[in-house]
């Protein structure tokens, strides 16, 4: 007789999920819960005394003009850098998807930037964009002071946007290219035989078929621009000049770690988490409707 060990599907499901659940609990739910608790108290940095203050931390942060400035800066940064990184990657992927000479080489080269760690990338860009010695120093010699990320907030914002987009172009490119390659050649060939041009084929056939990828990348890029921008800001601008690039995630770091204001930073990270959740829900509610899953 055949021996068979049987589990109910319920038990086996739990069994397989336990390691993952433990990890998620340890590294997400527990710290997040801790953050909620800290945001409702005033924590003395060395421990020893915590004062329950309820929502006071949130009140004082939301009454702070610098914090609103930080939210605005984050939204500007997220909007422009996501748009830029997605648009450039889309164009490049569309181009390399075609039967160009050397397209294999382009693919490899374009994927690389994503592999560079943010601090290394930021350091490189700091040199490239330095007003006196960098790539743009030539225009500064013609018009002194026109490029000055050390004092001009808009220039500093442009610097970090360029660095961040540079990195995510590579990431987005991988997904776009895969999406393009998943489109059956026969569809495009048929359209070509019917006499439609490259642009027409792109809008009518390729674009609708890659909307799931576009949507996925939009969610990821926006989320990452709120969180992964930290390393770039820290090394390139430290949030300056005059708070122009003090993105929410960087303000959390500097208030919490440098300023030892654990409770204020905890409250800010709760707000950031809520903001990302709201943005993600918004995207699923309103943008996903236009996505064509085929």
């Amino acid at each position, binding site marked *: 007789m055949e021996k068979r060990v049987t589990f109910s599907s319920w038990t086996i499901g739990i069994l397989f999920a336990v390691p993952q659940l433990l990890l998620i609990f340890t590294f997400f739910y527990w710290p997040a819960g801790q953050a909620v608790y800290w945001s409702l108290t005033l924590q003395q940095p060395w421990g020893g005394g915590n004062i329950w203050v309820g929502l006071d931390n949130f009140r004082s942060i939301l009454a702070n003009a610098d914090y609103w400035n930080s939210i605005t800066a984050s939204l500007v940064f997220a909007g422009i850098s996501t748009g830029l990184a997605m648009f450039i990657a889309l164009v490049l992927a569309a181009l390399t998807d075609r039967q160009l000479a050397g397209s294999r080489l382009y693919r490899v080269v374009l994927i690389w930037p994503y592999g560079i760690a943010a601090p290394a990338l930021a350091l490189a860009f700091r040199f490239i964009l*330095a007003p006196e010695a960098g790539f743009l120093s030539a225009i500064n010699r013609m018009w002194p002071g026109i490029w000055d990320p*050390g004092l001009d907030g808009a220039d500093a914002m442009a610097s970090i946007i360029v660095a961040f987009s540079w990195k995510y172009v590579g990431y987005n490119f991988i997904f776009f290219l895969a999406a393009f390659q998943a489109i059956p050649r026969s569809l495009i060939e048929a359209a070509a035989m019917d006499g439609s041009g490259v642009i027409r084929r792109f809008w009518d056939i390729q674009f609708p078929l890659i909307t799931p990828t576009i949507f996925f990348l939009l969610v990821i890029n926006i989320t990452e621009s709120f969180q992964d921008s930290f390393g770039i800001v820290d090394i390139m601008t430290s949030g300056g000049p*005059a708070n122009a690039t003090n993105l929410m995630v960087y303000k959390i770091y500097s208030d919490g770690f440098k300023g030892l204001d654990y409770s204020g930073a905890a409250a800010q990270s709760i707000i950031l988490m809520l903001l990302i959740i709201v943005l993600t829900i918004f995207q699923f509610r309103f943008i996903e409707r236009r996505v064509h899953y085929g």
Partner: protein
Amino acid sequence: MTMIKRGFAALAAGALSTALAMPAFAEPVKFDFWFGLSGDLARVVDTLCKNFNASQTDYEVVCTSQGNYDATLQNTIAAFRAGKQPAVVQVYDVGTATMMLSGAYKPADKLMEENGYKIDYADYFPGIARYYATSKGEMLSFPFNSSTALLYWNKDAFAKIGKTEAPKTWEDVGADLKAMKDAGYECPMAINISANESWQLMEQFSAIHNQPIATKNNGYDGLDARLEVNKTKFVQYVTDLKKWYDAGLIKIKSKDLGQDMVQAFASGTCQVIMTSVGDHGTVGKTHKEGMNWDVAELPVYAGTERKNSLVGGASLWVLSGKSDAEYKGAAAFLNFIHDPKTALFWSTNTGYIPVTKSGFDYMKSNGFYDKAPYKGRETAIASLTASEPTEITRGVRLGNFTQIRAEFGTQMQAIFANKVSVQEGLDTLVKNGDAILDRFQQTYPGKTLP
């Protein structure tokens, strides 16, 4: 069979316990020292630790660099909350108020007394000692690496405008910078306006002009102190700096822009800077070939009676919750660092100044300040001891001062980028700084500074 096994086990256990017990008599007591210096300076600290370990057999200090001052404090707090704190930790000057309220330290003077070391606290330069002492004069931590700000000036550039001396007043500075600009120098003076330069620009300036940074004697007399730099002589100073910047007499130099102040000075690009005496060694090693330069005390406005400048750098705190044996070791270590011979080693290799009169005298008697690369460093002592410290010039004792410095950088950048006027910027600095102080006070309800 089992008998034999047991016999072996007993034998093995016996051997092991003797092996463990034997060196226990000779094994020195280990204790940890965390510090925030890195690079060249970290290597000097490592040598210092080796020298201490070689000087006796009872204790062994394990020295670990945490990278920088901020990280040292953060890591120490994390370690303390987990009960794994080092015995001795280096904390930067502006962390002093935070440390004093932490309840996490053992007062250094008590530690020394309990372990039988007699330290003559009057031997410390008063400007240094009072920064780290309570209002009653008890030394809670020991000064370790100390510095103050100086004016570095390029003698060649000044010779071009017919000057053989560094400017003594800010009025002279203005005229000299103008003359250098007219003589064709692109960058007569360099400054930086990030959070860290609050030290030279706001704190040192306020001290030598005997101007308060905050009420309650710069916070020494209570946690309810509030900033007042928007109505002191500092306003005129920032106004002048901004005016000179607009006229092209001052350039902003920072690492973010490709070249920091010290590099700009050493390369001959900029002719005047204000920076720590700790950079004296760097300029000496890296300056352009044949360049003549010197250091002078920071200028004052005409008619000002000069006061002592403030000490910068860090001090050593002994943390609570360690064993008596470790405390004995920590006390021996502090005593070793206090020794004038250690001061000579430390200053020769770093650029930091000796913190005691006896250390300074010992170095003078060794001819240290007559030797070429070190000449000029005695100016830092002159600046620190220009006067007996007043209620205001003994230091700055404000909570979360790191955040206040960050706010200083933000507002200076806004001022220099013409986003706000000097007065508006300083008003905002005071307003936001007060909010930071409020928050610190709320975090420690009912507590007072020792």
